[in-house]
């Protein structure tokens, strides 16, 4: 069985020659199916860049990256879009819901891009909303929800196409500690159900919930420890 994530010598350099910024300087990282990993590090450490590359939002300058057994570093923008749609579910700090679409239509969106039929979309979206605990909010607009509820919608949307990997970037950063904790509980539940999860955070108490912490420092993996 191949790992979900397998990278070798990932580097990312912005700018060129004189003014080059080396955001990543050679990352070797392997994450197995079903792991719950926290990616930690101070701001500017390169963890956001790593997250972008792992999420197929950006391409590495050098190195190899296999996602779910498939090499992705040389793929075109269109192929990457398809991989994001199919294999990755994103959860962002600012929820990033479409404000003019109802909750259920937000959740349907990844399925729409995947070409899932209307009836099936609606049904699965409703199931996902039940799973994250807000089935009654399907028809409302995101603006009518609390921060915690919005993040639940975002999680439901991330799960829509049954991704191989759930990538959460500071998912509790905009929430108070109580609702933040509830959202983390949701992630823990999802992990127990077998999802592979990576949480990017600078909060060590959040990182402590994960099985394994990967600390990035100056574009390199500094410490790896498993709980």
């Amino acid at each position, binding site marked *: 069985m191949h790992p979900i994530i397998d990278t070798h010598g990932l580097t990312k350099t912005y700018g060129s020659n004189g003014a080059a910024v080396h955001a990543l300087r050679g990352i070797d990282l392997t994450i197995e199916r079903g792991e719950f990993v926290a990616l930690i590090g101070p701001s500017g450490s390169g963890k956001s860049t790593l997250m972008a590359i792992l999420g197929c939002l950006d391409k590495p300058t050098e190195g190899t990256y296999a996602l779910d057994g498939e090499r992705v570093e040389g793929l075109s923008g269109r192929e990457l879009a*398809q991989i*994001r749609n199919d294999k990755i579910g994103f959860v962002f700090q600012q929820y990033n819901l479409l404000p003019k679409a109802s909750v259920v239509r937000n959740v349907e969106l990844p399925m729409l*891009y995947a070409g899932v039929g*209307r009836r099936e979309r609606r049904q699965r979206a409703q199931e996902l909303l039940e799973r994250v605990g807000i089935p009654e909010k399907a028809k409302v607009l995101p603006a009518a929800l609390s921060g915690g509820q919005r993040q639940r919608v975002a999680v439901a949307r991330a799960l829509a196409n049954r991704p191989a990997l759930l990538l959460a970037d500071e998912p509790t950063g905009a929430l108070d500690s109580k609702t933040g904790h509830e959202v983390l509980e949701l992630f823990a539940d999802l992990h127990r159900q077998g999802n592979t999860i990576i949480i990017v955070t600078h909060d060590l108490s959040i990182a402590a919930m994960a099985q394994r912490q990967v600390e990035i420092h100056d574009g390199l993996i500094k410490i790896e420890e498993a709980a």
Partner: protein
Amino acid sequence: MFDGAFRERVLNSWVEMRENLTRSVLQSLGVILGVASVLGGMSISDSMRKRSMELYVRMGGLDKLNVRQSAVVREGAPTALQMANLGLRTADAAEGEGMDTSAVSGISLRKDARARVRSPYADQEREIRGIGGDFLALDGYEVDQGRDFSAHDIDTAAPIAILGTEAVAVFFPNGDAVGRTLRIGDTQVQVVGVLKERVFRFRSSNGNMFRWRNRIIALPTTLVARRFEGDQYHRVDRMAFRIRNLDAMAKFTKGLSSLLKANHRQQVDFRLDDVGARVRKQQSQGNVYDVIFMLSGFLSLIGGGIVNVNIQMATLKERIREVGVKMAIGAPGREVFKEFMTEALLLTAVGSLAGLVIGVGFSKIITASIGVPLHIDPKSFVSAYALAAVFGFVFALFPAWKASRLSPMEALRYE
């Protein structure tokens, strides 16, 4: 196509438009005005064209071939053939009809003269018009009181007359002309019919273009030939053939031309005038105005298009994050492109509809102010709409392309 992404795109675009109503109205203003001005311009020329068509119909119809006598340029002494040529005669008309009796559905003959016309009330030197065949119908006259000439009247050169309303007013000012007697030259003629008054104002403020037609004093051609323009050959000044079928018209014109040339000793001393063809030609020259109106519409659509691109680019800035999110959850650039295009095209479609409504309003005001009844050809609607669609499409391309080329990373991070 209609169940999935397309339907969703249209729905989203609609929501987007409604949510940003002010912006959408501003964006579509160029399209609205462009369509309105194209339609307004075209409807003016449509209305004028329709009006002139009505004029020709009122003048006796478009399905006519007029034949007139025309001078032949002669140098030096006339040749024997030229001397022997008798010109346009009643016989020509009969032979012309004989060529293709199924195609010809009416013939009119006209022979003019001048004479002194006297009644108990007036005494004037007037034009008198000898008429034969179906002259009244082919010239758009209708009998109001009394009757038309019968074939027998014309064959026998009956001393009878039909008067237009002006002639009645002059010679029988208290009305009641039918049955009364006029003295034309030295001939006593009895009035057997009075024609309906003819009125046509191209614009409501114009004078009556048909005023002179009401002056008519009509006698049988044969009477004019016998008593006023002594002529044993039955020459006529004009003849006309009514031919309903357009294809038959072309063939008949050709046949008649060679027939007349043969009858006229190889002299081309006549002019054939296919009224329908002439009018169609005139109207196609009138299309120059359409081009001018089209051009002004073009310019407003271009102006509107540029404004539109600007607004679209500005709103793109606001929506970069949204694009980033969509890309992150798997929308390819192509999908983003389609979403932006759908929005722009929906805006154009709705704006164009509004433009058509306003354009009709424009046209109503303009045609009312120049006093011509409004007529808009369905083709004008279609071309105004199509023009806007083309411009909407072209000007939507750039912002949509820009949006589709965003990097998902940068778009997500955009503040």
